[in-house]
């Protein structure tokens, strides 16, 4: 049944359904960038299978002048370029939404819906008339649909042209043909279709000085600024681009200007065991080192992580989380490694975790992780995920304070040893649980020690005596306590009205949560929130929970992993923490969070404020 077509300005979702390897990525990115250049925030997301060529991929762009960057759910316009996924793609369009497709070959009428607006553009025909080279036909088809969309959605062609000029700055022969293709599509649409549609982009001023980048690249830049010199990694989606970005940042930023030699060493190891082994060897020897991996890699690193914990060796791990095992959903996002990282390895171990919310925090925490690892002499995990790692996200510009110095932690120098300062590798001289270490090769006769797990005393002398073991384990707990004060503090925000309800969330859930809070507020539901940014939990975290009757813990995994960590580590009654869990591999949405919280409250018979008032 016909429905009124959607009318929305600067607030809609366009999804591109493509075939993997068809060269659509660059045209799709131009689409998102051109809207940004018109001052309207966008948040694009790649949805792709674990395959290189031939399988379907999607690129979803949420346009939101209000600045909502979380996934919204639902599609207002589908650019259906993949016959394979046609049925599902068409079915996913919101009633009153739009379907854009290549109408060169006629489609049977039962392949459409009557409650959407269908826009056919004979892309293949336009392309084949103009181009004879098959490769050109393929590539320019993408630019032609971009041109047609610019007419339909009122995207300024100038914005796209500028982007094309920037993109092909070093290959300027490509600029004119691309601009030509753009206008080929645009002119066809203007001549043959009713432009614009109900969905429209209107120039605004809502982007400001924000930047647009991927969390993986930002993390890698954080590693550069954090002074990392050694990187060892084994390819795994969605983390590979982090290691690759480190390589390209280093090539620009870390080459000795005189000798042209590298102030970094990157090794693609034979597996994750070797990656973390190299990181630990380098950390032991005083270089800042990291690895980038995902869940299956973390699993393989377990034994080494225990060694690093007990032998107290700095190491940084970027875990770009994804769903499940290698044959799980390796290209889908989740926050499913929280427990695996927090308690990684054998024996009584607990690790330091950081939870960046966006690329800017990936940069900040990426750099900070190295200071923390050196200060605490322990592995530090930066837990990002596919959603922020592999998608470009709008965020505040990166900032660096030139007055900042790298904190190398407690390293005893040759001079101190020479002056007769007592050195005990596992001696807690300051009461914070953190001992001094020495780098190998420091002094001819003082400060050397033999590194092993826990079968040693405060002076690193071999012993298997129980009291020495317990003494050491208690010091490690003191050190863990010190870490609470060093990891980034949680961020608290009061709800729109006084409330006994709270919500805790972390990492990439941020933008969806922010939007959900507004949706809930509109229903008269107020929640105080806390965004947790590190583990061990700062004292503010249990204090926040104590101040509320019920606290929702919103996360992207099945088992409520952060919630479990809160109950165990802060001694909290699980009944007080209500899990809100999203784990189907897609990014969490505001709609989901608001609905789940609303449903839970109805179940508890909590009446929204507004209804009380009316």
């Amino acid at each position, binding site marked *: 049944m016909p429905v009124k077509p959607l009318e929305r300005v600067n607030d809609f979702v366009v999804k591109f359904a493509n075939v993997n390897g068809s060269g659509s990525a660059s045209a799709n990115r131009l689409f998102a960038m051109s809207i*940004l250049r018109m001052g309207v925030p966008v948040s694009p997301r790649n949805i792709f299978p674990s395959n290189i060529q031939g399988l379907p991929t999607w690129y979803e762009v949420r346009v939101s002048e209000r600045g909502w960057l979380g996934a919204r759910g639902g599609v207002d316009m589908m650019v259906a370029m993949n016959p394979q996924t046609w049925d599902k793609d068409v079915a996913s369009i919101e009633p009153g939404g739009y379907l854009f497709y290549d109408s060169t070959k006629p489609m049977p009428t039962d392949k459409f819906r009557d409650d959407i607006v269908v826009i056919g553009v004979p892309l293949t025909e336009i392309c084949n008339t103009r181009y004879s080279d098959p490769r050109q036909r393929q590539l320019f088809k993408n630019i032609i649909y971009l041109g047609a969309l610019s007419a339909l959605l009122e995207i300024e062609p100038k914005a796209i042209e500028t982007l094309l000029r920037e993109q092909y700055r070093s290959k300027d022969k490509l600029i004119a043909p691309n601009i030509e293709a753009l206008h080929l599509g645009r002119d066809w649409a203007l001549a043959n279709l009713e432009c614009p549609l109900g969905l429209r982009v209107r120039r605004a001023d809502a982007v400001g*000085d*924000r*930047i*647009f*980048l991927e969390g993986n690249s930002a993390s890698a830049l954080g590693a550069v*600024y954090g*002074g990392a*010199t*050694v990187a*060892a990694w084994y390819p795994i989606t969605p983390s590979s681009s982090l290691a690759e970005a480190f390589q390209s940042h280093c090539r620009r930023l*870390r080459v*000795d200007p005189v000798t042209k*030699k*590298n*102030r*970094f*060493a*990157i*090794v693609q*190891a*034979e*597996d994750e*065991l*070797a*990656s973390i*082994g*190299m*990181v*630990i*060897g*380098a950390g*032991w*020897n*005083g*270089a800042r*080192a990291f690895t980038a991996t995902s869940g299956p890699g973390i699993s393989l690193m377990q*034994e*080494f992580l225990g*060694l690093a914990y007990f032998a107290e060796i700095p190491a940084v791990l970027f875990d770009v989380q994804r769903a499940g095992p290698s044959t799980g959903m390796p290209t889908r996002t989740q926050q499913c490694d929280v427990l695996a990282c927090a308690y990684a390895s054998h024996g009584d171990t607990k690790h330091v975790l950081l939870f960046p919310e966006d690329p800017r925090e990936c940069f900040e925490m990426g750099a900070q992780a190295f200071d923390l690892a050196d200060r605490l002499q322990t592995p530090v995990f930066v837990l990002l995920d596919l959603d922020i790692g592999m998608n470009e996200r709008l965020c505040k510009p*990166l*900032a*660096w*304070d*030139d007055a900042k110095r*790298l904190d190398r932690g407690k390293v005893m120098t040759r001079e101190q040893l020479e002056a007769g300062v007592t050195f005990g590798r596992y001696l807690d001289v300051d009461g914070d649980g953190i001992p001094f270490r*020495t*780098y*190998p*090769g*420091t*002094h*001819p*006769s003082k400060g*050397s*020690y*033999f*590194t*092993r797990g826990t079968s040693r005393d405060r002076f690193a002398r*071999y012993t298997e005596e129980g009291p020495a073991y317990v003494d050491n384990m208690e010091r490690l707990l003191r050190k863990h306590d010190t870490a609470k004060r060093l990891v980034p503090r949680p961020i608290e925000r009061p709800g729109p009205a006084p409330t006994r309800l709270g919500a805790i969330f972390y990492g990439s859930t941020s933008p969806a949560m922010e939007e959900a809070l507004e949706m809930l507020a509109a229903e008269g539901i107020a929640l105080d929130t806390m965004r947790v940014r590190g583990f061990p939990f700062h004292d503010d975290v249990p204090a926040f929970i104590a101040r509320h009757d019920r606290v929702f813990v919103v996360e992207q995994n099945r088992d409520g992993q952060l919630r479990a960590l809160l109950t165990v580590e802060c001694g909290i009654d699980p009944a007080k923490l209500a899990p809100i869990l999203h784990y189907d591999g897609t990014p969490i949405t505001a709609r989901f969070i608001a609905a789940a919280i609303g449903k839970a409250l109805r179940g508890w018979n909590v009446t929204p404020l507004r209804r009380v008032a009316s």
Partner: protein
Amino acid sequence: MTYLNKPVLHHPKLKANALGLTHRDYEGKVSTLCAGCGHDSISAAIIQACWNLSLEPHRIAKLSGIGCSSKTPDYFLGPAHGFNSVHGRMPSVLTGANLANRELIYLGVSGDGDSASIGLGQFAHSLRRGVNMLYIVENNGVYGLTKGQFSATADRGSASKRGVSNSDSPIDMVSLALQLGATFIARSFSGDKTQLVPLIEAAILHKGAAFIDCISPCIAFNNHPGSTKSFDYVRAHNEAVNTLDVMIGRETITADYAPGTTREIVQHDGSTLRLHKLADDYDPTDRTAAADYLQRRHAKGEVVTGLLYLDPAPRDLHAGLDTVETPLNRLGDAELIPGAKAIERINAALR
């Protein structure tokens, strides 16, 4: 386990080397291995070689995996930092350490279980990367520390202490090292210090991946008749293809060699290796011929020892990565942090 003092060295112990250091300065803690364990003799040979070369003990980093053999770095070179890491993973830890500071000397000590079983992968990859190190496998054909199970280097048909025959094919670490591209490869015997000490010296001076497979009988679990890694078996079947003198500049460091034809090879660091041929048909600079020779002799039950392969001009991992001469762990903030201006430029490119 008995807590015996390490075997007394017959050399004039308190003689000083070029640095004015005596043997004592190269020793470590008292060994806790079984009295007579081959591994202790290798420790003694390491001490001797480092003293001979007048190395500063604290400029050496000792790394090992897990096993009786991997415990030994605590028993030599006390002033050096040591790292008893995890089972089979010494090579990666050593690689990382080497990346952090290219100026130290890296000594990796491992066992046949550590390197041929659980750690075969890391053994292989560290050699093919050309990590500048001496990698010694103290090879006894068994897992000593877990009480005598066969390791992957045990010969097919050799018998365990309880009389069980090993039915699996052995891994020959030297043949693997040849294939993998190690640039210094030797085999020796813990019972032959005259052969072993100069091999360790030459391997330390070698600026690339140096590997020594050192047969090192396990007194407790693999020194009985029927074993091919016992003292008696190795003595009876040891076929040394050469002996070696290591010379730095004009000075002869080691004398006392058996007669034969000689050949001199200058290593990249300037040291000269004078090889005394014992087997006429053995050419230690021919990788494929060496591999062929070793297989033929092994089939006859011989244990070929000596300097088995040498590439005098190796390219190490740092050369491949083109890293700066300054050790990475000594680079300061100014060399590491691109600064606020660079961030501004990066931001500008991301809009």
